[in-house]
């Protein structure tokens, strides 16, 4: 990400965002609501357009070329706050859909891959249920498995635990930690500071569309550099 700017109408949402993510690196982005952190990661697979700057994912630049954008999206997995599973398809069908239609895998192979990932997120027994029959935590784990089935090079997490009941947050975080241990490149927008401390290589703090601070988790939590980070941390730790 190089010098990325984005406007919604006249509102400057992202101001000069520069970020280089290395392979197998795990980055946590945090910041107050409205700070542009979700918008920033949604630019990486171009769910949001940006007006200035450039983003290169694994050697492919996001241009206006639709084919190229689709190619980038294939390599970038995304997990949403509200899971966004396809309610009319069973869990297994949710997982095999993209491998079959985008990667053109034969159904049998796609199903084998899907089952292996469903086992990794520890819900193979739910494969033939529909999303509406699962709990929030289970749905989010299916969403993670669905992304993994495309064998992405990088995973984006957009507040994956914000819509969950407290007792389900842990099962999703455990899944994400397991994923991190396997060396997946991850960018995660989250308020789970415990997760940031244990997993992240770098913490990025954003406010009003800017990157305010970029630091190792140890430094960020013990000696935040800017006043705004200090304020944010004190508010979070209060809650």
């Amino acid at each position: 990400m190089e010098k990325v700017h984005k406007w919604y109408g006249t509102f400057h949402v992202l101001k000069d965002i520069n970020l280089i993510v290395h392979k197998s690196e795990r980055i946590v982005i945090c910041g107050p609501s409205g700070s542009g952190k979700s918008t920033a990661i949604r630019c990486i697979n171009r769910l949001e357009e940006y007006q200035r700057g450039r983003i290169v994912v694994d050697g492919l630049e996001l241009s206006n070329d639709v084919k190229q954008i689709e190619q980038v999206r294939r390599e970038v997995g995304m997990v949403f706050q509200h899971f966004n599973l396809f309610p009319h398809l069973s869990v297994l069908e949710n997982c095999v859909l993209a491998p079959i239609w985008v990667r053109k895998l034969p159904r049998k192979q796609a199903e084998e891959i899907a089952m292996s990932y469903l086992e990794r997120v520890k819900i193979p027994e739910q494969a033939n249920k529909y999303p509406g029959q699962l709990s929030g935590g289970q749905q989010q784990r299916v969403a993670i498995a669905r992304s993994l089935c495309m064998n992405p090079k990088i995973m984006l997490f957009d507040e994956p635990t914000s819509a969950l009941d407290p007792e389900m947050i842990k099962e999703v975080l455990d899944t994400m930690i397991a994923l991190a241990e396997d060396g997946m490149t991850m960018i995660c927008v989250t308020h789970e500071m415990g997760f940031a401390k244990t997993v992240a290589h770098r913490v990025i703090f954003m406010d009003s569309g800017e990157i305010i601070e970029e630091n190792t988790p140890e430094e960020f939590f013990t000696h935040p550099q800017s006043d705004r980070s200090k304020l944010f941390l004190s508010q979070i730790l209060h809650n």
Partner: protein
Amino acid sequence: MSEAHTSRSDDLPPANTISVFGWLKRNLFSSPFNIALTILALYLLYLTIPPLLRWALLDATWSGDSREACQAHEGACWVFIRVHFAQFIYGFYPEAQRWRVNTAFVLLILGAAPLFIPKVPAPFKARLGIGLLLLYPLIALVLFKGGFFGLSVVDTSRWGGLLLTLVIAGVGMTAALPLGILLALGRRSQMPAIQALCVTFIEFWRGVPLITVLFMSSVMLPLFLPAGMNFDKLLRALIGITLFQAAYMAEVVRGGLQAIPKGQFEAAIALGLGYWKTMALIVLPQALKLVIPGIVNTFITLFKDTSLVLIIGLFDLMNIVHNATTNPAWLGFSTEGYVFAATVYWLFCFSMSRYSQNLEKRLHTGHKA
């Protein structure tokens, strides 16, 4: 013993809320005003139902083959329907060729039957459905119209009755739905030119009455076409009805598209699916399921609106029944004729309605995400 009794009475709601009497009391006799309404309604039913039954069934004439047979009875003369039955079904289709119509309908029923059996696997159904959609119109056209394989040509002006009604309704439905879906997608498109085109199309066709469309197709269109160029009156009516209904269908489908959360679209494209695959695999299946009631509503309207083709001189079921009632040999039996026509329309429309309810139940997959 007494413990078991109390626990059982705790399990069930009080008897007066579930028994027949409970239901009657709650729904029909809950207040003095409701009691009065109930009694009034019963009285009106008493006034209308017995005479209706007497006319339609008890005092009706069922056998015979001339109007004289009906003189003896006071009730309905169903002989009128019996005598004209073949005409009501086939119109003026030549008698010797009617087997072709029968064959076509038997083929349709045989071909479509597996689609309605829940046990048949879905991929087979999909293939069969698409095959039927593409092939059957051709088969039916060849059989109805002839001109191939030694079949004599039967001009469309001789098609009539229920046959014509089903042809118009069938073509209208199968063509209007896909066209409507495309228009709905176009109307929500990001591309201004396509959007403007679709909006204009929809608003134009929704803005004119179907009768006007039919008049234009049969009276005005020939004026604009170069001399000598002429296409079939039925074909013109079919095109008019299809475009007209497609505009309505587009708005029904658009309602469904708007109800699908943006997250569904985002999740699909984030997986690398392109626009068309996202629409075909993710958005439309959900959107169409939501608007099944609206789609069927449009279908039912279309089915009944086919009767408007009588104003351009096509003899659909309604028109042919009307025509028979003006037959000098059978004057005075219009009630029987219209009751028959109404019953046939009702049977078809009611079946569609029931099928759609069944479909909605089967496609239900629990709560929405």
